[in-house]
């Protein structure tokens, strides 16, 4: 059998006595795209951090092409031809593409000055080879997110990387950008690079990967060939039990003969025009549309983040003028933003403090915070959303990516709003938690709330919505009741504008 390019054997890691990785095995072949999957907090990111020298394993060994190596820093990882493709945090926005790629490795002229010409030429050649259509002297600041990643990959390759690690690379990409990234990954694969690919999106995994390794609760479960397994098997390995299809639409009933609980009349703003919208109490309305169709912008307008030019918003029949998020919260609106890590979380604060921030007035006893009550609320949500944390006093920043997402969800759910707006509610969240979130949203609707969901994941949108609104170029183009939509394809067509 062919020797793997990378092998990790018997890796153990504990933080403060709590085991996070338990005897994990992982092996990658040359020229393959290898998916690493598992629920939130399964230990995927931690395993990769050990591989890149951010953490050191308590025990276990790493072999590169059969040779044992020690990796104590990111530098040493790079010397072993391993590179992490960070999502957006490892480029310097104020420098150009070429300056970024060759930072600290610039060629010098004979008198010791930087030879920028040489840098640019090498970058041009590199980008040409990779087929990436950006110029070496473009400022990174001016590039789209998709190009950030390609610049990063180019940088890694210029450092002779042979193993590339991508941790949820598509979570901030549009569909187009994702496709471009995939064709790029295929090219890299053909050239013999190995790619470790972490994602919660099943369709992506089956599209791009050759093999899948699955982890659960810090343990290695199995490694399978993509061509020899199927979705259900993979899901059951991740979840650890037979998985019941929660992603099925449940016909729901809600009162149609009462006045709408939420109404928008003739709303126009910078990116949206002429929006009219009514939601009954207990109704879940999904918004579908392409990236840039104005979905996120509409939610931001409704929540008072971006100003509206004209139009009125009614909640419970009462007109509200919403100028800022504080007005919106007071009027009973809540928005769970898409970019939750950045917008929704104080990483330095505890899980509990994050969750109870918007509801401080509700957990007060006189002038003081009732810590018993706020503890109870926090614990309840940790249990409900299955948040993997040692306790509610752990710093939010130390939780795994997906568990951080869940905290933000909890934070706004705890506020018990009249109208709940969610932007891509399950991004970065594992399959188990996805179904839980779907359940929670349904339960909120059952309580007579109005729900407005934006999602690019059509199965999720279809599972949730009673009605789907399709947006295009800032306008509502079409409206369909859930019953009218026969299949995901039909909705996909409608979104594409056919």
């Amino acid at each position, binding site marked *: 059998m062919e020797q793997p390019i990378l092998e990790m054997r018997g890796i153990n890691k504990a933080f403060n006595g709590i085991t996070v990785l338990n005897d994990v095995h992982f092996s990658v072949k040359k020229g393959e795209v290898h998916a690493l999957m598992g629920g939130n907090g399964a230990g995927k990111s931690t395993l990769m951090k050990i591989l890149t020298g951010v953490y050191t394993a308590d025990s276990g060994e790493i072999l590169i092409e059969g040779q044992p190596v020690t990796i104590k820093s990111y530098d040493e990882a790079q010397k072993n031809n391993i590179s992490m493709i960070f999502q957006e945090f490892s480029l310097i926005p104020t420098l150009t593409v070429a300056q970024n790629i060759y930072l600290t490795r610039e060629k010098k002229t004979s008198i010791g000055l930087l030879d920028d010409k040489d840098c640019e030429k090498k970058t041009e050649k590199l980008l040409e080879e990779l087929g990436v259509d950006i110029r070496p002297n473009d400022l990174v600041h001016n590039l789209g997110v998709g190009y950030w990643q390609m610049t990063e990959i180019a940088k890694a390759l210029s450092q002779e990387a042979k193993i590339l690690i991508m941790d949820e690379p598509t979570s901030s990409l549009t569909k187009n950008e994702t496709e*471009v990234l995939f064709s790029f990954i295929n090219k890299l694969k053909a050239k013999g690079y190995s790619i470790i690919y972490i994602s919660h999106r099943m369709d992506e995994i089956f599209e791009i990967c050759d093999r899948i390794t699955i982890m659960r609760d810090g343990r290695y479960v199995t490694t399978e060939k993509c061509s020899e397994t199927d979705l259900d098997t993979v899901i059951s390995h991740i979840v650890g039990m037979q998985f019941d299809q929660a992603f099925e639409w449940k016909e729901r009933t809600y009162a149609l003969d009462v006045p709408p609980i939420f109404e928008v009349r003739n709303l126009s703003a910078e990116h949206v025009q002429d929006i009219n919208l009514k939601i009954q109490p207990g109704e879940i309305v999904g918004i579908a549309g392409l990236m840039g169709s104005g979905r996120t912008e509409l939610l931001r307008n409704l929540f008072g983040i971006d100003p509206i030019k004209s139009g009125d918003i009614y909640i419970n029949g009462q007109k509200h003028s919403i100028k800022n998020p504080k007005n919106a919260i007071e009027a009973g609106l809540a928005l769970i933003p898409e970019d939750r890590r950045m917008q929704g979380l104080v990483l330095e604060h505890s899980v509990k403090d994050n969750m109870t921030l918007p509801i401080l007035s509700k957990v007060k006893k006189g002038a003081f915070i009732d810590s018993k009550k706020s503890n109870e609320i926090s614990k309840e949500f940790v249990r409900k959303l299955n948040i993997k944390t040692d306790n509610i006093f752990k710093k939010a920043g130390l939780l795994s990516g997906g568990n951080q997402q869940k905290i933000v969800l909890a934070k706004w759910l705890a506020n018990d709003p009249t109208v709940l707006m969610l932007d891509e509610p399950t991004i970065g969240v594992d399959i188990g938690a996805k179904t839980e979130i779907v359940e929670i949203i349904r339960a909120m609707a059952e309580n007579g709330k109005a729900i407005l969901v934006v999602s690019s994941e059509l199965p999720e949108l279809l599972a949730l919505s009673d009605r789907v609104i399709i947006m295009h170029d800032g306008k509502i183009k079409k409206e369909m009741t859930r019953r009218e939509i026969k299949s995901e394809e039909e909705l996909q067509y409608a979104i594409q504008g056919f």
Partner: protein
Amino acid sequence: MQSKVSSVQKPAAPSLKGFEWRNYIVYFAFVGVLIYFSISLSDEGFLTSANLLNIVRQTATISLMALAMTFVISTGEIDLSVGSIAALSSLVGALAIQAGYGIIGGLIGGVGTGLVVGLINGLLVTKVAIPSFLVTLGTMGAVKGAAMWVTDTAPVPIVDANFNFIFGSGDIGPIPVLLIWTLVFTVIAHILLRKTSFGRQVLATGGNESAARFSGVKTMKIKLMVFLATGLMAGLAGLLYAGRMNAGRFSFGEGDELSVIAAVILGGTSLFGGVGTIIGTIVGSLMIGTINNGLIIMGLDVSQQMIIKGVIIILAVAFGKKAMKR
């Protein structure tokens, strides 16, 4: 498979609106200020070559400190202690000369003082991890105190004519030596920032510190170096004060941090780090000098000048921020 990436959001064309406007605003402003004073102060002789050279002389100290400050601000830090360093350095330099160590002794004393304070600033910021704003606010006070204490607030006269020539009042032909000092260091600073790996790493550190670290930039070392640079240049500025005024004095450099930071920000260096320009800084500095000069000729006193400088800083930052947002 089509190999060229094209369906993706194209890199936005380098935005003409924001950045360029921000980069050139200082030049327009400078010309505007010159025209304004030329007209309103034409009777007082603002536009005579004697007065213009005077502006250059008076501005040299600010300019040298602003050059170094450009590096500090480009890393996303700030140094408020420059004015106090200049004061203490002028005194240490003057004392060294008085004690008979000559010009070299004065130079080593003045510049050495600056370097020591710069080192302390740098170590506190990098090793003890105190924000530079607080560190240098502290040293600003402490160093000023030291300057008042060494001679019990008494000035120290310098009688060494050579020193006074080289570091202050000398002219070579029609050219003031202070202009030469300014030009030489401007060229050095410009090359350092634009053409050397040190400069590149300064900009990288300010642009995104953790990314810079992951790319192999020793960000702590870079920060230490930039504080040494402001220390060094503030020390030299102190000697230029001493040379021009033929004495060391604790009140030199008072309020200079305001002028220096205003010059840098006006010039287009981003207070948020990552973007810096030496040419902009020097124009910004000349503009501050011109405003100072014009206000003095107009008969405004120090307090009124300070108000105007404060307003200018805030306006400059506000403009810069708008432009950054695009």
